[in-house]
């Protein structure tokens, strides 16, 4: 009996709901413009090769083709990347992965564009392929970029592991292998690029940071930022995958060159080969504890396959290094990580941001230690857990929090953990349970520009206009804005006009990433509400003759003793605009640790699995989880983020891998890249939100976009061990491995 519960009441429908359930909402890939052309990008045939010749003549000659562009047509910088612009818009000398762009066309139909692409002649001289990060790290390897193949190194050291390990009674050393996961947003990259009559360019394409796209496009197009308008919301999912530029440079150049609107919508195959992915990682951990359960030493080595270009590879590695000890206190720690260039698919930002990989390894270590110590895994975790005012995982000052302890205590009560293993009467089905815990930083962290802000004003229609430079990727940001604003101002949702995702209309709020949106909207309203209400009441007092102190802001206007005396519309005056904006930075730790976080959220997950010993199939039958991320802003959104994140993590654990051989994808669509369907989800899930914050905490609700994706994988693997006695170290869990283990165990 399917049963999905939580401790939260259901909330009112979200503002973008009507358009979505009726199908009336236009996504950018639904848009049509008069005279619109269709663009298509030619990607590399090889993972690594020299371009010897590139001939576009035959493509240009095809009737219906209006433009064929290559590196020669890039007006400005032939490069992009959120931090380092090392990815060519068009390659003209060397291609470094199968997603590298070589040319693009615009034609009057998609079919003609496709045919034109096939007429572009490129002669390549294949170069040796670097598909293994460890070989690529070797100093003798051919460098893919001028700085060598190690894109980034990060480390953290505390105490002395060499002194710590000899004190340990039990030491676990294990290597964990994590796969390349695809975001698999249902709407692939796409949009329309429109040259406007005034010479400006309008870009209708999904992203997670409109202003950053504008900056990147300005460099590429050699235009001032003001001449570009980026309309960036809504979109059909992103999960971190659309934060980096994708098709925008091609659409933009084609539109400017032809003077006509150009639409590009990547096919799933194009999306797969060119889109960024989650970092595959190889993580080796050596962890030692005393008989008492006290963890004494922890040594970690991380090798992240970052693919051909940088994008956010360094930041993802920093995040993994930071979270390598999670919420535990370990006196001797040595963590070393490398993000390494290869000819594989580009890895970058992905919901969880390195936390998924490192937590899988860390929690695996804790479980194995508990087993060797004959101690309950919960007890071992509790024993080594940080206390509320302890520093963060890299010794940095963080906002005091006991979220880890709250979620752990909550999950200890889970009925799953009282499971009677004899409940299965089928000898070929084994059941097991597992628990895992995680701590996840929000915001970009120390040393990374992380400004935010918002703007509130009374507009000419008498609506309270609240504007943020964020995007609605599906996460429910609009509902968060609606809930926080109506509560802060005291107006109703009908009084609001929410503006997001349009660089011509919104203030700078930073990116819609890193679980920062909800948090930043709340912080903005804390700053905006006082001065804005003050201005409204000043005006109302002037207009009505009543004392300001007698008045209050309420539904549809200004109220006096339970009666509305002025509507918002009556308050609006062209020459006396009421408008307040705010700018501030996401709170970070004061300690100078690159990427070090200050605000964290927590989750503890208990799962029950059923292992089929005949087929090797793993069925997750129950997931129970506790989440600590501060007050809940929008219950449906919160539950949806946790449930959805959890099932994305279930795919990561059991099904999904964007596998490559010789740096070529061996899967190019959903027939072989297997996503969880409705048949794969457990019949029971429960989400318990713990809203308490540390006494005196002034930082409000934390975002929950990522926290639901982190702790499931280690919990499932522990449950498989509980059922079979076999420890899995590589994801996704292979059925063959389970069958092989069956032979070994029984």
């Amino acid at each position: 009996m399917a049963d999905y519960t939580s401790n939260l009441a259901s909330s009112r429908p979200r503002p973008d709901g009507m358009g979505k359930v009726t199908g009336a909402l236009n996504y950018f890939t639904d848009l049509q413009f008069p005279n619109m052309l269709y663009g298509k990008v030619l990607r590399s045939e090889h993972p690594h090769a020299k371009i010897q010749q590139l001939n576009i003549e035959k493509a240009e000659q095809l009737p219906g083709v209006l433009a064929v562009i290559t590196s020669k047509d890039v007006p400005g910088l032939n490069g992009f990347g959120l931090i380092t612009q090392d990815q060519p818009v068009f390659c003209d000398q060397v291609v470094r992965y199968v997603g590298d762009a070589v040319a693009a066309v615009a034609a009057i139909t998609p079919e003609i564009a496709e045919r034109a692409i096939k007429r572009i002649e490129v002669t390549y001289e294949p170069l040796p392929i670097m598909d293994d990060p460890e070989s690529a790290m070797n100093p003798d390897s051919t460098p893919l970029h001028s700085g060598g193949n190690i894109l980034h190194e990060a480390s953290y050291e505390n105490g002395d592991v060499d002194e710590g390990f000899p004190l340990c009674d039990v030491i676990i050393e294990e290597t964990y292998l994590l796969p390349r996961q695809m975001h698999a947003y249902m709407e692939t990259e796409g949009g329309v690029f429109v040259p406007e009559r005034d010479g400006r360019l309008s870009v209708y394409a999904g992203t997670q940071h409109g202003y950053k796209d504008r900056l990147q496009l300005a460099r590429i197009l050699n235009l001032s930022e003001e001449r570009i308008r980026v309309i960036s919301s809504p979109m059909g999912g992103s999960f971190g995958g659309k934060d980096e530029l994708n098709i925008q440079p091609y659409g933009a150049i084609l539109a400017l060159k032809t003077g006509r609107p150009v639409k590009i919508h990547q096919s799933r195959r194009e999306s797969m080969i060119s889109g960024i992915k989650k970092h595959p990682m190889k993580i080796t951990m050596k962890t030692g504890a005393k008989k008492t359960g006290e963890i004494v030493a922890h040594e970690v080595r991380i090798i992240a396959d970052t693919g051909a270009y940088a994008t956010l590879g360094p930041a993802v590695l920093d995040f993994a290094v930071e979270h390598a000890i999670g919420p535990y206190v370990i006196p001797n720690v040595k963590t070393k990580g490398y993000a390494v260039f290869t000819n594989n698919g580009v890895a970058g930002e992905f919901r969880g941001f390195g936390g998924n990989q490192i937590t899988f390894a860390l929690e695996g270590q804790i479980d194995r230690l508990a087993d060797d110590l004959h101690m309950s895994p919960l007890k071992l975790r509790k024993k080594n857990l940080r206390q509320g005012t302890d520093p963060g995982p890299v010794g940095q000052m963080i906002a005091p929090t006991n979220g880890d302890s709250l979620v752990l205590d909550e999950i200890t009560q889970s009925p799953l953990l009282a499971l009677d293993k004899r409940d299965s009467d089928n000898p070929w089905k084994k059941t097991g349970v597992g628990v895992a815990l995680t701590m996840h930083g929000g915001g970009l962290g120390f040393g990374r520009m992380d400004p935010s802000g918002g703007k509130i004003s009374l507009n000419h229609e008498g609506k309270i206009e609240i504007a943020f430079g964020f995007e609605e990727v599906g996460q429910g940001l609009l509902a968060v804005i609606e809930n926080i604003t109506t509560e802060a101002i005291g107006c109703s949702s009908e009084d609001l006009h929410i503006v997001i995702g349009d660089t011509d209309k919104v203030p700078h709020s930073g990116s819609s990433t890193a679980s920062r949106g909800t948090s930043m909207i709340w912080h903005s309203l804390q700053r905006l509400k006082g001065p804005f209400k003050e201005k409204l009441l000043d005006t109302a007092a002037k207009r009505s003759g009543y004392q300001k102190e007698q008045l209050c802001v309420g539904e549809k206007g200004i109220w006096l003793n339970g009666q509305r005396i002025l509507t918002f519309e009556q308050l609006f005056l062209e020459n006396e605009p009421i408008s307040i904006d705010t700018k501030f930075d996401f709170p970070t730790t004061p300690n100078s640790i690159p990427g070090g976080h200050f605000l964290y959220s927590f989750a503890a997950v208990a799962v029950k699995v059923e292992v089929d010993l005949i087929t090797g199939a793993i069925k997750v039958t129950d997931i129970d989880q506790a989440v600590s991320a501060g007050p809940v802003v929008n219950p449906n959104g919160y539950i949806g983020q946790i449930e959805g994140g959890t099932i994305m993590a279930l795919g990561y654990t059991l099904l999904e891998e964007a596998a490559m051989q010789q740096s070529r994808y061996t899967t190019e669509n959903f027939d072989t890249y297997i996503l969880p369907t409705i048949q794969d989800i457990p019949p029971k899930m429960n989400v318990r939100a713990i809203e308490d914050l540390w006494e005196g905490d002034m930082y409000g609700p934390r975002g929950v976009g990522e926290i639901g994706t982190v702790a499931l994988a280690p919990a499932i693997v522990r449950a498989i061990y509980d059922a079979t006695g076999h420890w899995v170290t590589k994801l996704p869990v292979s059925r063959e491995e389970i069958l092989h283990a069956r032979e070994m165990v029984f």
Partner: protein
Amino acid sequence: MIEKVKVNSQRINISFTVNGEQQQLQVEATKRLVDILREDLSLTGAKISCEIGRCGACSVEVDGELVNSCLMRAYQLNGKSVYTVESLSENGLHDIQKAFLEEGGFQCGYCTPGMIMAVKTLLEKNKKPTDEEILDALSGNICRCTGYAGIIRSVKKVIQAI
């Protein structure tokens, strides 16, 4: 003008109904139903995502059956009756749409039109489906956002109200 390009696929006349309205079109014989809906009829509720019939984002109802409109072609459409998500809210929101709104049955919304059509086709045939029948009927529609729990809550809400 180079714009008058002959597309070298044979054009045929087809006659079928979409959301109850008769349509006479001259299109290439191999044109996909999803493109006919989106380009010729401006019905963009059916979405394009995998184009190989694996994700269900383009699901519509054809003669009472759920169909991936990326797999059906113009030459197969004569005399057929097609319903898209746009038909559901012609007289106010359908109960399925209301339930999706209230129970968090969607997030990004891109799979939602197809998912809602899958629920509609199920409930037209079977007013009180079991859990197993619900899972079976929706197993061809992928949602990457919700983890399906909100979708199942929505479907159950509709069934309870019937």
